[in-house]
């Protein structure tokens, strides 16, 4: 079976700026998370997928078709852009209804479908309010409603959780999961790995316009874990602490860059964080603060690309 998305050596330049750089990846059915830091090329890939941009090089297929100026493909796609701009002067009902009419739906059906979609994303009580009065989280849900109201085969969601409040996040994730459970495909981007962990294990990592890893989340996690994870520990006795930590077999290096700082590199961060409190307590050591410069996804990507 053909993959939902197939990209081969895909490149896109914006003048001198590189949007995608020989991106190659295939996304199968279900939910796929496209994870990468800001500016990695996620939105460029999505705009190529919805036919808003044309690639400079390489091949791209969405549901087996070339998306550029492919009108016939569009009713199979539901797209949720990254930006929160909407037709602020419209109510949510009118917004979704109008876009459904553009899918060729009769007015009465469009009205019913719009109401159903807005209910699905939890906006029924606000459906007749102008969109300009919506919070960022509500806008995200309105965007999601218009993307799925016409029952597309694939949802392409560009940072759908960005700016959403906790309740909105749950609602959005629930809606996405439900769509996938009913047989739909979802391609969702985020720059926060943990956001996507909750609904899928299929991840594609993108950095500097290149696909740097893809597959099962656990496999990627293992890949990430092969690279030493740095922990910066504030302590008045870094050498004593270093002596105690040296016995941990997953610790690959210990460094004292400042008189009251110890930097530890470990191949098993989970084990390190689990064992550290015991070692500190047993040795009666003084640890005043912990921070990991590797917490950000950017750092993980830097490891993966060497």
């Amino acid at each position: 079976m053909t993959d939902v998305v197939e990209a081969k050596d895909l490149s896109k330049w914006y003048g001198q700026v590189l949007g995608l750089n020989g991106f190659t990846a295939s996304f199968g059915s279900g939910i796929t998370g496209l994870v990468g830091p800001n500016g990695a090329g996620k939105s460029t890939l999505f705009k190529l997928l919805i036919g808003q941009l044309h690639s400079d090089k390489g091949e791209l297929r969405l549901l087996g078709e070339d998306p550029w100026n492919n009108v016939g493909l569009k009713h199979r796609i539901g797209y949720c852009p990254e930006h929160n701009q909407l037709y602020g002067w419209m109510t949510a009902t009118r917004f979704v209804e109008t876009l459904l009419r553009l899918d060729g739906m009769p007015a009465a059906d469009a009205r019913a479908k719009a109401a159903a979609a807005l209910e699905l994303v939890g906006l029924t009580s606000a459906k007749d309010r102008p969109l300009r009065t919506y919070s960022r989280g509500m806008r995200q849900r309105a965007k999601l409603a218009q993307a799925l109201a016409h029952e597309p085969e694939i949802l392409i969601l560009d940072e759908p959780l960005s700016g959403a409040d906790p309740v909105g996040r749950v609602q959005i994730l629930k809606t996405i999961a439900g769509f996938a459970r009913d047989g739909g495909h979802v391609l969702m981007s985020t720059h926060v790995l943990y956001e996507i962990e909750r609904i899928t294990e299929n991840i594609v990592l993108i950095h500097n316009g290149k696909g740097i890893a893809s597959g099962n989340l656990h496999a990627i996690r293992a890949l990430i874990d092969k690279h030493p994870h740095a922990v910066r520990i504030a302590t008045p006795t870094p050498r004593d602490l270093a002596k105690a930590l040296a016995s941990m077999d997953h610790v690959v290096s210990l460094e004292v860059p400042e008189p009251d700082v110890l930097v530890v590199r470990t191949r098993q961060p989970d084990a390190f964080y689990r064992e550290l409190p015991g070692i500190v307590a047993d040795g009666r050591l003084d640890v005043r603060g912990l921070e990991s410069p590797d917490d950000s996804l950017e750092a993980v990507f830097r490891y993966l690309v060497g």
Partner: protein
Amino acid sequence: MAFADDLKRAPVVMALTLRYLLGTRRVIAMGLLAGVPVLLTGSLALAGVATFDILLFQSLMIPLFLQVVLIFVTLVNATTLIREEIEDNTLPYLLTRPISKPAVVGAKYAGYLAAVLILLVPPVVGAYVITEAYEGVALSTDADVLAGFLATTVLGSAAYGALFLFISVIVRKPLAVGLLIGFVWESIAGAIPGNLPKLSLIHYLRSILKGTIEVGPLSGFVTDVSAPLAVAVLVGATASLLIAAMLVFQQSEFRQKA
């Protein structure tokens, strides 16, 4: 099949455009500007100006309505159609629906034309009615004047709209370019001897007025373009510019604004 689908969906885009141009606050400013002929003729009538007649009406309408109000209203509304959607990042909502890009342009243009005619035609008729009523003559007395101004309003709205729409799909700051073309080029070209005025739309609009109005300030306007030819040129220019806008838009890429 695809064309039939576009035709079916185009009215939705047209209605969306109409609602935006006439249903949002922007219509207040546009309405006030478009209403200038009525405000002016109404003021003249209220002031009891002795020389206020159909000749004065024409003398005021040509420089004021044709060369200012018409150009400004068409410029502001036509450049909004595509460029504002790009600037506001709302264009993806339309472009991810099963309607072709040229059909989006065509439908937006149709919505624009309907909106500007709703804004511009009633004030022209209203100003004419006020003038004839003030003179105390039957409304049909100077029907040629009304016909001439209605024709130029419709054809001018169509042609300037297509021109400004085309500009808006090829440049990022269409309003500035449109102001230059609408108020500088259109004014200067008409004053240059030879065939250069034929490169301005206003030349053909004036030619229509000269050809349809028996007595008026344009009696001395020199043109070898008959009214029917002027109509044909304006219709041709409108169609060409609109098709060009569709073709450019079809091949355009859209980066989201940061």
